[in-house]
């Protein structure tokens, strides 16, 4: 999946000379946590987070605090340079940036122009879509030898029962590299025929279907 499919294109921005007070207002009004700072040609020059703004704002505990701090330019507190991503980046790739750099939002830039934003939340939402847990279904995990042709073998068993596969994930088997774990979500309330067929074909199922006929 590409970044352009998940990015938000309605973006709230500020110019470098806007005040911290304006940023504070925008963050609250739009319930966002990041504002990209752009110049007049929409090139990104910095980014501020709600945290940066909060740190720069006078504490509410000091009644006589110097409110003039809020009138400072946003560029005095923005982070720069900014790590950006491209609309044609893979979502899987940018997950690494979120993870490694601990960012909570990434601006999307194309030909130097800001075209979108992706937040950690968008990223997690995409992950939920990829796992298929947003669709009603039953979950089956199969331990299979790590060898060519195994996936179609398993899916044809599922297909044999006309069960509709919502998602497939392939994980390494942590304690034995000769195996993989296939995770299926299938769109049925009655996965028993599929489970029986998989067992009969000699496949090992994982918890809670690893005990054959556990309930009798």
């Amino acid at each position, binding site marked *: 999946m590409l970044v352009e499919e998940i990015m938000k294109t309605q973006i709230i921005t500020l110019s470098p000379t806007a005040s911290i007070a304006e940023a504070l207002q925008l963050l609250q009004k739009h319930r966002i946590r990041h504002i990209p700072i752009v110049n007049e040609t929409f090139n990104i020059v910095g980014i501020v987070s709600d945290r940066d703004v909060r740190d720069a704002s006078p504490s509410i505990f000091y009644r006589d605090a110097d409110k003039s701090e809020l009138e400072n330019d946003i560029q005095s507190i923005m982070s720069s340079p900014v790590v950006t991503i491209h609309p044609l980046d893979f979502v899987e790739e940018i997950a690494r940036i979120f993870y490694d750099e601990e960012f909570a939002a990434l601006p999307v830039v194309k030909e130097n122009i800001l075209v979108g934003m992706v937040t950690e939340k968008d990223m997690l939402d995409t992950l939920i879509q990829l796992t298929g847990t947003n669709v*009603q279904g039953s979950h089956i995990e199969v331990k299979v030898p790590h060898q060519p042709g195994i996936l179609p073998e398993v899916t044809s068993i599922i297909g044999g029962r006309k069960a509709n596969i919502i998602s497939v994930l392939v994980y390494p088997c942590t304690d034995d590299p000769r195996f993989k774990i296939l995770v299926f979500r299938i769109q049925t309330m009655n996965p028993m025929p599929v489970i029986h067929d998989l067992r009969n074909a000699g496949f090992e199922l994982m918890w809670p279907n690893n005990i054959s006929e*556990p309930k009798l």
Partner: protein
Amino acid sequence: MTGKAAFIYSDALLNYHFHPDHPFDQKRVILTKELVEAANQLHPNEIVEPRMATENELALFHDRAYIEALKKASKGHLSENEGLEFGLGTEDTPMFLGMHEASAYLVGGSLTAVDTVLEGDFYHAVNVGGGLHHGFNRRASGFCIYNDGAVAIKYIRKKYDLKVLYVDTDAHHGDGVQWAFYDDPNVCTFSIHETGRYLFPGTGNVNERGIKEGHGYAFNLPIDAFTENESFLQGYETAFKEIAAFFKPDVIITQNGADAHCFDPLTHLCATMDIYERIPALAHELAHQYCNGKWIALGGGGYDIWRVVPRAWAQVWNVMKTGKPAKGNIPVTWLKKWQEKSPVTLPAKWQDHSDIVPTIPRKADITEKNGKLLQNLLKYTNPIK
């Protein structure tokens, strides 16, 4: 006349039938009725005939386009592609002739149960043919076509303007009903079910708490696979009592799916008949404590139709009628009649022997995890505390 309890029944409730190999089998309804009759617990003046729900009543929850599609499917006039858009014609909910009428009767049964209780003729009523909690407003799902529980609650809200507590003890999450009232503070939903990590439909996490005005009025206790009686009941009892005290309902609707039993082929929960005595007993107690007895019970899932469901549902009736579950032997006349048709040996007693539960190696872990979930759920029953 004011009676204690009404048993909603007519043969029309048996027509909800996909095909002979489908796990959802309404034979459960007649098995239950004949069991309580054989036990001399059901008298003709306690039986109330269901009516068929009207289209306007169905439309209290369901989309008109969906109802139209079902009417077509019912006559065999809905194409495969048209059907799929509405979740019809899948392995779970295949089409069958007369499906609209059969489904509308199940809904009508629940509406009859509602009127019977709320117009004051009876304190309690049970429609074991209902409880089809997975149905969505324009999509069939999980063996459910029309969602009688959701329609019944909409009907109560509109006609009687009462606060409804919906309690769902089916092993599957009561998703259709939950989403129907997710933003409604006058309808509180509580579902205890096997975690959706493996089991259909996959939802029902403890953090699903409702949105907007309805925030704080949805409760979920997704217990672990292989949960046994004690841990199930600990969660059910504590949560139900706390939620009732928090919400103070005017009427309680319970969905009594009977698929958490260790014999059930579709789920991984490991309960015995013990829970099916306590589930209605507590609902009964709380209905009297908060709702002047107004309690409507529905059926639901349950796929061991011979050994589990008739006893479980009969106990709902026994509790409604006598205040307590039946003990001792299952009536011989019932056993005689049905044993020859059953592929398994029918149980001779109302209670199960504890040795039917397999040894679960991780019992302590499971119990601990369920306890944590319960604490998490209870955070929202009394925000001021």
